[in-house]
């Protein structure tokens, strides 16, 4: 995979178009999805985009596997909510629109302190230290209820201070646009970072820390600076979280939150800058929609993650880019029948697995409601053998057909890749 061949182009039209599209999407999204549920999801997506991109600064660009990124976003959120309360009490005069910056500075400060320890080492040791630091902060949240608010968390009211230009941040739509502006600016800044000397040396440190030391750079410094910048952006996301929810509980610094950032950044694709944006959208879709739809959502998530790690370690972004490459050589239409077969059989497997999982969950959790269960409008009897045998047969058929179409797809894919290589050779020869 020639994923990361960065090229030097002073003026890039394609890039300009993409950024404009991103801005337009942020601008019109609440006009297209107007329900209060979609409003909730859109605001959360904006926040998640910032935090996942900041996480990928470590994971994808720096090769640092952190298990404690929620520490920086979480403590940023706490700093922001306390500031909000101070503003509400008339003690401090920070405009609400700048509260996320307070979160960012808090995230930066925490990263300056904890990063000095964490970034001393790389690789496994770094991962272990972040895990330890995460646990440390989590246990502190239980010991210091004055700051972390104990069980109930810290709540606040974002409609405080003197509104500028009539914007009170009372209505959700105003908060959405605040988040959208932060999301856009932070994304631009984080992309810009990848084009700077420090950003490139971070890639070098990821690829080969040893050699970096022999071209004049202190790898610890490179990691430390990147860690601080990532902490800053994570803190901004935390600040937006505080403004959006008006309540912050201790679980925002917890390991589960850190795990979610890792999982979805990986799922979206850590090799490409835009991968974590996809991951962030999925994070919100899964935790809001999927969790509404089924109690077994974490199980499905685990399965997806497992399959992704095994078969597409580059995440969705790299799957996308591999197909963009095929399309660029005009060969995508040769693959569409294979894709259709793959999608059809995968759907069959998915339905069969879902029926089985849902029936098990029904027996274990909803016994009291009787053996009858509705699955996508179909009534299933979880006590009878019919449903089980049917599901098993469907699964077996699905898996069998999927394997057949997968092999066919692999063959076609290989042919197309071979033809692309030949085409490249031909063009080089000209």
């Amino acid at each position, binding site marked *: 995979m020639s*994923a990361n061949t960065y090229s030097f182009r002073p003026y890039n039209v394609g890039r300009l178009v993409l950024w404009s599209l991103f801005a337009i999407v942020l601008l019109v999204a609440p006009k297209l999805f107007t329900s209060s549920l979609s409003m909730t999801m859109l605001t959360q997506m904006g926040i998640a985009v910032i935090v996942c991109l900041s996480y990928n600064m470590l994971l994808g660009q720096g090769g640092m596997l952190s298990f404690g990124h929620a520490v920086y976003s979480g403590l940023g959120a706490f700093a922001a909510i306390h500031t909000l309360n101070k503003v509400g009490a008339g003690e401090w005069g920070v405009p609400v629109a700048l509260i996320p910056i307070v979160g960012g500075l808090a995230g930066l400060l925490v990263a300056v302190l904890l990063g000095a320890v964490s970034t001393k080492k790389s690789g496994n040791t770094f991962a272990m230290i972040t895990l330890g630091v995460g646990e440390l902060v989590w246990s502190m949240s239980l010991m210091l209820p004055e700051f972390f608010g104990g069980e109930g968390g810290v709540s606040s009211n974002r409609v405080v201070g003197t509104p500028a230009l009539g914007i009170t941040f009372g209505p959700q739509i105003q908060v959405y646009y605040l988040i959208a502006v932060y999301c856009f600016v932070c994304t631009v800044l984080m992309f810009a970072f990848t*084009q700077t*000397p420090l950003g*490139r040396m971070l890639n070098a440190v990821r690829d080969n820390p040893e050699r970096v030391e*022999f071209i004049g750079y202190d790898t610890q410094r490179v990691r430390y600076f990147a860690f601080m910048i990532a902490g800053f952006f994570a803190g901004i996301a935390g600040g937006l979280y505080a403004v959006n929810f008006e309540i912050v509980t201790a679980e925002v610094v917890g390991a589960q939150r850190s795990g979610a950032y890792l999982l979805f950044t990986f799922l979206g694709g850590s090799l490409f800058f835009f991968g974590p944006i996809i991951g962030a959208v999925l994070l919100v879709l899964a935790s809001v929609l999927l969790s509404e739809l089924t109690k077994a959502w974490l199980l499905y998530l685990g399965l997806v993650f497992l399959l992704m790690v095994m078969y597409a370690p580059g995440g969705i972004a790299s799957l996308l880019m591999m197909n963009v490459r095929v399309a660029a050589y005009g060969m995508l239409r040769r693959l569409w029948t294979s894709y259709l077969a793959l999608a059809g059989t995968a759907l069959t497997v998915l339905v069969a697995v879902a029926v089985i999982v849902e029936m098990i969950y029904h027996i274990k959790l909803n016994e009291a409601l009787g053996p009858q269960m509705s699955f996508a409008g179909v009534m299933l009897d979880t006590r009878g053998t019919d449903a089980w045998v049917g599901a098993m047969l469907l699964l077996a058929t699905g898996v069998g057909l999927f394997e057949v179409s997968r092999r066919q797809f692999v063959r076609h894919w290989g042919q197309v890749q071979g033809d692309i290589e030949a085409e490249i050779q031909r063009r080089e020869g000209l």
Partner: protein
Amino acid sequence: MSKTPSNGLALELRDVRKSFGKTEIIRGSNLAVKAGERVALIGPNGAGKSTLFNLISGRMAPSSGEIVLHGEAIHGMKPYEINRRGLARSFQVSNLFPRLSVFENIRCAVLWSMGERYAFWRFLSNLNEVNRRAEEVLDMIRMRRKRDTNVTNLTYAEQRAVEVGVTIAGGSNVILLDEPTAGMSKSETANFVKMIRDVTEGKTLLTVEHDMGVVFGLADRIAVLVYGEVIAFDTPENVRNNDRVKEAYLGSVLAENQRAEAQAAEAAGA
């Protein structure tokens, strides 16, 4: 970047020793390399050539002794501190940034020497000096055609060229090359040696080399390392005629060649 001291020495080793546990690998090596000189370091396998390189470049610290670069003691310093003082090294096994292109590999090696350090407030594309230097190095190592190719997709010889490029890109004036031509074909080697000559013009070069053709063609002086000691350090002619060297190293190499030839002749006769 650095001044040559009054004695005209770029690099000096004074009774350098290095032990791993109880085994002493480098046993009191002395070497004085003049500024602008090309020195080849030869010796049998296990003589400690790579260890000596690791000591000089800061990958390891010597157990005792002094290493002096341009009149300044550098032993015990970190590799990046030594590099910033004007010494760069290459590796025996290509040691590049695998997910970056040829150009990006070279540019990374240019950044520090151009004073960019840890800057995150300037765009790489706007660093004209840096980019010009990187392009220049690209031409010097004759890799312009593969400028945007990922280094993992290069041939072995091309990777070796980038290895040299990354080493010289920072403008260091003392260059250490660890077996730059190892594993190359005869014709590749000839071109490569010419390239090394060009890119190290006016610099101090210390190179480990097994190919005696390359050694005698490239070096102004040859240092012979046997069992962690420099047993000879002289012009190629004198080293060739040195009895101790013949006995300890060259002799065995020649004898090996003669035996192989005799066997080949026997096989052909039979």
